[in-house]
């Protein structure tokens, strides 16, 4: 309950910061590492699969750490 009252604004700020850094990561990886996608495509792993898996794991770790921080507070 106290989370929604007191900490939601800071969570929202951190969350949007996370979304922005993910978008930047997506942009720079796609432009700097685009050639390496052929390695995974030749193994049958598509770009979409790579990105969806990576982003889900990354966001899950982020949310888990937020939860742990909130619990330990």
């Amino acid at each position: 309950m106290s989370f929604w009252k007191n900490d939601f604004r800071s969570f929202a700020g951190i969350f949007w910061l996370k979304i922005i850094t993910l978008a930047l990561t997506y942009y720079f990886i796609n432009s700097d590492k685009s050639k390496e996608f052929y390695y995974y495509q030749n193994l049958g792993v598509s770009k979409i699969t790579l990105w969806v898996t990576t982003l889900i794991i990354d966001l899950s770790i982020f949310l888990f750490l937020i939860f742990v921080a909130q619990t330990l507070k």
Partner: protein
Amino acid sequence: MKHILEADSIQLEFDNRKILSDIYIKFETGKITGLIGRNGQGKTCLMQIIYGSLKCERSIRINKINQPKTFQIPELLMYLPQFNFIPKRLSLKRIFNDFELDYSLFEKRFPEFASKYNSSINNLSGGEHRLVELYIIVKSKSQFAMLDEPFTHLSPIQIEKVIELLKEEKSNKGILLTDHMFNHVTEICDDIYLLVNGKTHFIKNMEEIEKLGYTKLESIQ
């Protein structure tokens, strides 16, 4: 078993300029097919379209069956791009494991790799790097392989060995390759297509190559 890959009905435009418009190309098990053409004619684009990484109107058929997403099925088609594509941090051990290839056979064919099993690909020379990329694409289990400039960065001895490898491997898969090393292309290819002004021309004799303006035959003899 013999497999045939055919590509046609390809329309590719950049900034209202037609790059590819009248294409028919076929490659099949037991043959090495060459795709030649001057710079900027769209050879790489054509390979990327067949592979599926460049989207446009197209028809790709394998054994007469339409295959819209060839790049998602490595058992059907593998592609060696003209640039280095293996992530630099990977070791040869990891690469050969990923592609389920036997390193000892590679080592036997190319003894210079004898002590490099645990090396990262980044520590290899340009020629060695290209050789690893070429080998994994050619030796992996797929029905077809497309090789974009496979001889780039290779030394004459390495090229000889690669030609031997391709000649052996063509009994297992259909190979399409493009390269500017015309002598090597004509040496190993069973069929040759010349790409001029967005159209493919099947070459029946060498004089046609000169007639279509790709090269002067006297300069390469």
